[in-house]
């Protein structure tokens, strides 16, 4: 495919790898915070091209994985309400909540449907006027505008049987939270390319200024990732900390103003609970008062008891980059993609699922 294949050229990849090796004089730890990067790094064998001085760790970049256990329980509770159709992106179905998952609810008679786009969820609402259709709003800034757009469409067309359970997360506040903990060395961030097509580079300035941690916005093909790593290494070697864009073909410094506007119109920032990171101020999105009739939290009783993490599961540490999946006692034993214990093994882009698939035992 155009704009993909040319960025997989092996000679150029080797050239970049050699340059990284030549430039890198000290050991650095770089964190990627996007599940798509996690998968791409494994799939293209990026680690095997890098010198020993570069340690790549995964952070809280998988939206399904960082969703709080209470929100999983809430979606299960929602599915049990008679007359409700729960619509969601695929990965959410199998995440185990405290005592059930959406998939098991579906098997016992609840109506849970996987959709590819919020437009599909709206279509289901249109075709089932006597039912309540709820979309589970999971995802980062890439996805949030598509959900804002659906709420606006529902509002404009009077689709009153549609609502959203908003559990969106914003990445830059999580980066800040990771660094402010102070007990984790991160020398640079491989920033998420598609999130940044929306938000632009300004939200990373805080991290760069406050902590002096370099940020490079990177694309998803092998050459993108290698070039992004080289740019980070150069910043570190030169003692600089800046926000730079490697993924220039898709990312503009100002982001996507139209998408930001619609997000701003529908949502307001709120404190949000992240699995593994706890409450992070202003890291979530709540539906504004004006659109509250489309907010599932207002329409249904979604109170759930405080939930605990699955016993023995290290997802919380894995999501902070503080442990690698192989350090979890359940990894590959009690926990596999077929019978996952934690969300990092469920989601196709979870760090544990990636290690299971690509990391030799």
């Amino acid at each position, binding site marked *: 495919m*155009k704009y993909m294949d040319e960025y997989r050229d092996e000679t150029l990849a080797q050239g970049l790898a050699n340059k990284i090796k030549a430039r890198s004089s000290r050991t650095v730890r770089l964190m990627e915070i996007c599940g*798509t990067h996690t998968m791409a790094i494994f799939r293209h064998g990026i680690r095997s091209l890098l010198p020993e001085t570069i340690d790549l760790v995964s952070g809280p970049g998988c939206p399904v994985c960082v969703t709080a256990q209470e929100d999983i329980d809430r979606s299960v509770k929602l599915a049990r309400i008679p007359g409700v159709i729960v619509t969601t992106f695929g990965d959410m179905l199998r995440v185990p909540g405290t005592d059930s998952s959406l998939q098991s609810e579906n098997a016992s008679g609840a109506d849970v449907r996987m959709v590819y786009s919020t437009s599909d969820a709206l279509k289901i609402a249109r075709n089932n006027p006597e039912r309540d259709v709820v979309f589970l709003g999971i995802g980062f800034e*890439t996805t949030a505008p598509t959900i804002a757009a659906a709420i606006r469409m529902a509002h404009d067309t009077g689709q009153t049987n549609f609502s959203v359970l908003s559990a969106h997360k914003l990445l830059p506040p999580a980066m800040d939270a990771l660094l402010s903990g102070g007990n984790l060395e991160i020398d640079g961030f491989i920033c998420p390319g*598609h999130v940044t097509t929306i938000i632009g580079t300004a939200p990373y300035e805080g991290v760069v200024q406050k902590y002096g941690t370099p940020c490079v916005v990177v694309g998803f093909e092998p050459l993108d990732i290698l070039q992004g790593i080289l740019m980070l290494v150069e910043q570190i070697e030169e003692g600089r900390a800046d926000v730079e864009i490697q993924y220039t073909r*898709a990312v503009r410094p100002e982001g996507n103003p139209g*998408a930001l506007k619609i997000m701003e119109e529908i949502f307001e920032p709120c404190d949000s609970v992240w699995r593994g990171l706890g409450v992070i101020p202003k890291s979530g999105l709540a539906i504004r008062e004006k659109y509250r009739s489309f907010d599932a939290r207002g329409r249904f009783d979604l109170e759930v008891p405080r939930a605990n993490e699955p016993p023995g599961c290290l997802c919380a540490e894995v999501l902070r980059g503080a442990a690698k999946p192989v350090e979890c006692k359940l990894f590959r034993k009690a926990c596999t993609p077929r019978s996952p214990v934690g969300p990092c093994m469920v989601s196709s*882009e979870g760090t544990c699922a990636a290690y299971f698939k690509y990391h030799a035992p």
Partner: protein
Amino acid sequence: MCLGIPAKIIKIEHGMGIIDMEGTQKEVSLLLQEDAKVGDYVVVHAGFAIQKIDEEQALASLETLREMASELAEAESE
């Protein structure tokens, strides 16, 4: 989950873009990228075009990589 696929808009009908993905045609919403035109390449995420691809930037960045690779090759052969 933030997967984005580059695809070319081949038609626009009633505000929806029709894209070509390796031979199959799909409908995408242009609500988040209202000035997209037929012929543009866009990044598609969850049924929405979220950004236009800048052809010039794409060519320039590949060019930089090629230059770098040939410089390295020269340095090695010296």
